């Protein structure tokens, strides 16, 4: 079983990123540093992607059904997005935080492998399934990068007591596409639900939380646009919105209404 080589994949992935990180932070030769710190994680991301594809082929269904499987995609997208942002902005802390975040998600997968089966219930056998979940995962990863960026900004704020506008701009540049993808994922989900069950919206707990996440990011966008001097509020709102997102994805089963959701992953 491919899942059994996740540990090896993990070790290679982490090692490559680690070497990249060391080069980013400790080497003085700028040009060579940048190259190595881009190439190695690039390879790491490719290896993780290859793992997902091989696993997909083996189980003969898209690996998007269980929590463990969505974490795999998430780790891949976070590291990919942080890698792309690094190419454009050379933000070192984000590089490190993104790497840590993917590592944590992969580690959780190693500790909680969950239940791997080829079975896919009829409701999920639909061409809408892959775009709906993949777009959500990409969006979650982009918004994670936005949140990490904000945390770096907040750290700078605590240190120097001035607001790092450049940093918040980068965060908002991530929130726009992240929010847009959230919108698309949600709307595709609604159309799919209509086709599968006849209701595009049923106020199921997972849907309600997803709506809440969407609304909070909507607040961020409007606060940023209409009240450009409320930077501190925006920073808190960005961090808080990501907490709501994480609850939507991982945490609703711990809320009173959560377990009745038809969307709770796995068994």
């Amino acid at each position: 079983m491919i899942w059994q080589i996740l540990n090896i994949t993990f070790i290679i992935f982490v090692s490559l990123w680690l070497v990249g990180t060391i080069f980013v932070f400790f080497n003085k030769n700028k040009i060579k540093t940048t190259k190595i710190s881009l190439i190695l994680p690039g390879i790491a991301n490719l290896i993780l992607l290859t793992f997902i594809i091989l696993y997909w082929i083996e189980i003969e269904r898209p690996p998007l059904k269980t929590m463990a499987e969505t974490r795999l995609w998430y780790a891949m997208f976070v590291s990919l997005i942080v890698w792309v942002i690094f190419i454009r902005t050379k933000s070192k802390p984000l590089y490190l935080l993104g790497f840590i975040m993917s590592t944590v998600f992969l580690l959780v997968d190693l500790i909680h492998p969950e239940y791997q089966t080829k079975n896919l219930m009829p409701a999920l056998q639909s061409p809408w399934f892959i775009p709906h979940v993949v777009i959500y995962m990409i969006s979650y990863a982009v918004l994670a990068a936005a949140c990490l960026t904000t945390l770096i900004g907040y750290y700078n704020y605590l240190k120097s007591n001035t607001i790092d506008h450049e940093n918040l701009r980068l965060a908002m540049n991530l929130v726009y596409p992240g929010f847009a993808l959230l919108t698309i994922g949600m709307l595709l989900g609604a159309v799919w639900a209509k086709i599968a069950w006849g209701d595009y919206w049923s106020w199921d707990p997972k849907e309600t939380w997803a709506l809440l996440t969407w609304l909070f990011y909507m607040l961020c966008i409007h606060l940023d646009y209409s009240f450009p001097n409320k930077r501190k509020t925006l920073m808190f709102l960005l961090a808080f919105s990501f907490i709501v997102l994480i609850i939507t994805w991982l945490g609703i089963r711990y809320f009173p209404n959560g377990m009745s959701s038809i969307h709770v992953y796995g068994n």
Partner: protein
Amino acid sequence: MEKFKTYSIAIPLLLFLDGTIMQLIFGKFPINSFRFPVNFTLIFALLIILALVFIFYKTKTIVKFLSSGYAALSSILFFIFHVIIMVIFSQNDHYSGFWGAIGFHKITETWSYAYSSLYLLLSLGMVSFRRLTPFNTRNIFFYFNHFGLWIVIAFASLGQADKLKLFISVPENDIVWFGTDSDGNFHEIDFAIKLNKFNLAFYSPQLAILDDNGELLKVKEFHPVDFVKDTEIKYKNFNFKCLDLYEDAIIFKDSVVFIDDLPEKTWLGTVEISNKSRKDTVYLSTATSFHPPKIEKLGKNLNLILLPSEASYFGSKIEIYTEKDSKPGKFIIEVNKPLKLGNWTIYQNSYKKNPGNVNYISIFSAVYDPWIKIVYVGIVMMLIGAIYLIFSRKKEFKK
């Protein structure tokens, strides 16, 4: 701007207060009195009023406020307030007491929620009018996002007054022309469904280990595996190898007996078990309502079993009789593949066993939702707007 700030706080508070008083006096919001043509007229009137107010009071506070960032944040936050109630309080009608009386256990049916939707519509509508000019790329996509959402909110909330969803249970070889709504009321429908055949297919069952309380072991110790020939699994010092799998068979006096027309799917699998002291082949079979499972007890908290298999497919071969057509039409309805029939869309919902019978009962849902096309227009507008939003900020990246 101080004024706007005051409005943005006062309006939600007043709306909530008024909504709650209405809730206490009249009970839940009477969405059902908004059936066609009331809903359509209202939405139309709302648009006209927004347009007129916009045209004639362009420079007045009302237009300025409703299309401002203050109103946006205030209306979104007021809506968020209701959604938060929804995740905190369990949402079902039957609660009484204080929270039940003010509608917190069914927030989408409260006056306050209805006011909140109206507030969103006013703010969204006004800003959509304001951004109609100047006519440029940015404003067009702004319009797609905001007016698309306007359409979705307006037609989804008021349109639901006309929506009807009926569950229709049809046993095999039977014909049914009525359904029940979610409150259990009977409705006659203008077509009849005859179920010719209900088709079901299954994944192969899974091999699992139960402890002595009948619970699955934790995933980390042993996770169930699909029963596929020659799969080998190790657990503690045992080695299990899946051999043959038989469908619709039971074990009878040590031999495999195949039976047609069993009332439920049954599986029989042979597994080779080996460790230091033994090596033998055992039969396992899934449990059904008419016979117990065959499990293999290997030690304390170690019972090898076959889990009942999950459905991989279900669908119905049906005939539809309508008053118009003399000949019935033949169709297949599957999960994710509904059938459109005039104003109705018919979905494969679920199925159950017909008690004491080898047949199945197929459960369909028929949905009448006349406003769905307009809601889709709104959804498509929002999709277009969102695609633009993905790329719109890219250029501002700093080198």
